[in-house]
């Protein structure tokens, strides 16, 4: 059997700051198969975006991968020289970002930006590059694609801009696309459209997708599997339907209870008590223990472990059903 498309083992990404080392990603492991859609869910500061940037080798200083392994199609990416990493970026692993108004260069035409992305991976002529760009734009549903290549980003609506960014990511038909909250900045109706289209595109092209979001509702409509992150660690993972129906971890339950989209009509929305601790001072034992109503002495001293399950939670007292 072929190795998995992406195999992440004990990934650790640290930021050395004057105040101390921030363990933004603290031992994350997961596997992604070809064509699979994985949701990476967590609050701000949970390490979900840093995980994405670690995978594609685009950490800003002072961030660095402190340990672990990222195997992409059997190739180790941790420690790979930047020149080699660059050849993979955009070609085999692409990434799209939250705000298309900020990611596209306002002073270059869409065609110029797409041509650059094409030519970064081989010397296609300008004509061939533009033809490829037009095809990619048409694929993401931009009408009259060839003519729009001469337009500037500000001449597109927000949703259309994000489609352009997605078209750039799709140019080389990558095997993996990392999407860092790409619909957060968009209207809800546009959001739903793009989610549906991304799902179809991923299915048709066999592209695997890592969808990073703070919104469990979005992930539930899109992903096959979901990983819930808290303070740089995985708290729960499993198939989306299982996690949503029967969350094992109190934190996941807390997230679900606070979602209007998933709550039963008339049910009062609850919030998770307390605030996320400083990443400089992660509690020993279970990181969620200080905010957890079921925490015991064991939770406060011993980090929880999990067996190799289909659906599991890093919790000493996992409960299949909320009390």
């Amino acid at each position, binding site marked *: 059997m072929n190795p998995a498309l992406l195999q992440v083992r004990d990934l650790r990404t640290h930021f050395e700051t004057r105040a101390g080392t921030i363990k933004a990603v603290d031992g994350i492991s997961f596997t992604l198969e070809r064509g699979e859609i994985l949701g990476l869910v967590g609050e701000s500061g949970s390490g979900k975006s840093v995980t994405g940037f670690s995978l594609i080798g685009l950490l800003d200083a002072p961030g660095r991968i402190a340990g672990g392994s990222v195997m992409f199609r059997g190739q180790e990416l941790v420690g790979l020289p930047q020149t080699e990493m660059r050849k993979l970026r955009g070609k085999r692993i692409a*990434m799209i970002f939250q705000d298309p108004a900020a990611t*596209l260069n306002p002073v270059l035409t869409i065609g110029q930006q797409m041509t650059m992305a094409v030519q970064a991976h081989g010397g296609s002529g300008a004509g061939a590059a533009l033809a490829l760009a037009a095809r990619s734009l048409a694929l993401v549903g931009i009408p009259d694609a060839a003519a729009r290549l001469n337009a*500037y980003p500000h001449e597109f609506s927000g949703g259309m801009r994000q489609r352009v960014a997605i078209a750039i990511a799709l140019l080389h038909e990558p095997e993996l696309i990392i999407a860092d909250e790409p619909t957060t900045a968009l209207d809800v109706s546009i959001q739903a459209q793009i989610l549906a289209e991304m799902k179809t595109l991923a299915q048709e092209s066999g592209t695997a997708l890592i969808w990073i979001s703070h919104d469990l509702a979005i992930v539930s409509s899109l992903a096959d599997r979901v990983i819930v992150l808290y303070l740089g660690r995985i708290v729960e993972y499993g198939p989306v339907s299982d996690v949503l129906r029967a969350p094992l971890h109190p934190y996941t339950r807390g997230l679900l209870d606070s979602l209007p989209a998933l709550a039963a009509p008339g049910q009062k929305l609850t919030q998770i008590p307390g605030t996320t601790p400083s990443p400089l001072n992660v509690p020993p034992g279970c990181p969620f223990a200080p905010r957890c109503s079921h925490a015991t002495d064991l939770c406060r001293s011993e980090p929880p472990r999990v067996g190799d399950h289909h659906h599991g939670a890093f919790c000493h007292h996992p409960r299949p059903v909320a009390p």
Partner: protein
Amino acid sequence: MLGYIIQRLIQAGFVMLAMSALVFVGVYAIGNPIDVLISPDATQDIREATIRHYGLDQPLWQQYLAFLGRLLQGDLGRSFVLNIPVLHLVLSRLPATLELALTSVLIGAFVGIPLGIYAGYRPESPFSKAIMAASVLGFSVPTFWVGLILILTFAVNLDWLPAGDRGPTVEIFGVGWSFLTWEGLCFLALPALNLSLFKLAMLIRLSRAGTREIMLSDTVKFARAAGLTDFTILRRHVLRLISIPLVTVFGLEFGSTLAFAVVTETIFSWPGVGKLIIDSITSLDRPVMVGYLILVAFLFVTINLVVDLTYAVLDPRLRRGRRV
């Protein structure tokens, strides 16, 4: 776009009008030119005839209107001292200054912008730190001192380059230029270098600040995620994004260098307009002063207009009325 240009041209016209009034009134208030023009022992008749001849007996506003009328016909008056048309006088000196100023801003741009981008791209490298330290010197050391040191080093001690004057020129369209011959370039080198140091330092700091900011932006992250090389990112993305503040400073510096290259022109005895204005101030040659300042204002307004239009070329968001 056309409407924008027309609007800017009308604005430019008003600026010129205001400037002409300010200059005329301002210069009128300085001294009495008659005392300079005729010898103190001239008879009262000669004195009054001279005053009438130059129109100095009329009220200020009439003198201004007459001046404005002549100005619109391209007549800036005649020099009191040299008795030749001011326009002719200034234009004969302008090419020398134009050449000097243009060379110095181009040195500033072509050396300063790449150095600044590098310093912003690799802020921690020793070379970048050396660039930044040198740029502080460029800012803080006075021009006249640097000029003297340059002469002392390259002209007196090493004897590589001439210490001053303009040297031979080649005539094109009746105007002499230095940059076409090697010898002319040698004469141009030191004053141009002297004048460019401040611009160099400023463009280094501006491009470094812009580059640092843009290197952290999502645009650059996204370009990296698409697999672009850093060189392509710097050349295609960063350079375009930092160009607007650079063009602004380039334009302003070019204008002020044209108008006020006085110190460098004096040190290197460069026969430009800077020396002309100093001479005309000492001899109270009012038409030359007024005409020169009007021309300088005109140059500034023109350069600003070009800068504004360049913005529209550089930033598509400023091109109004463009919809696809």
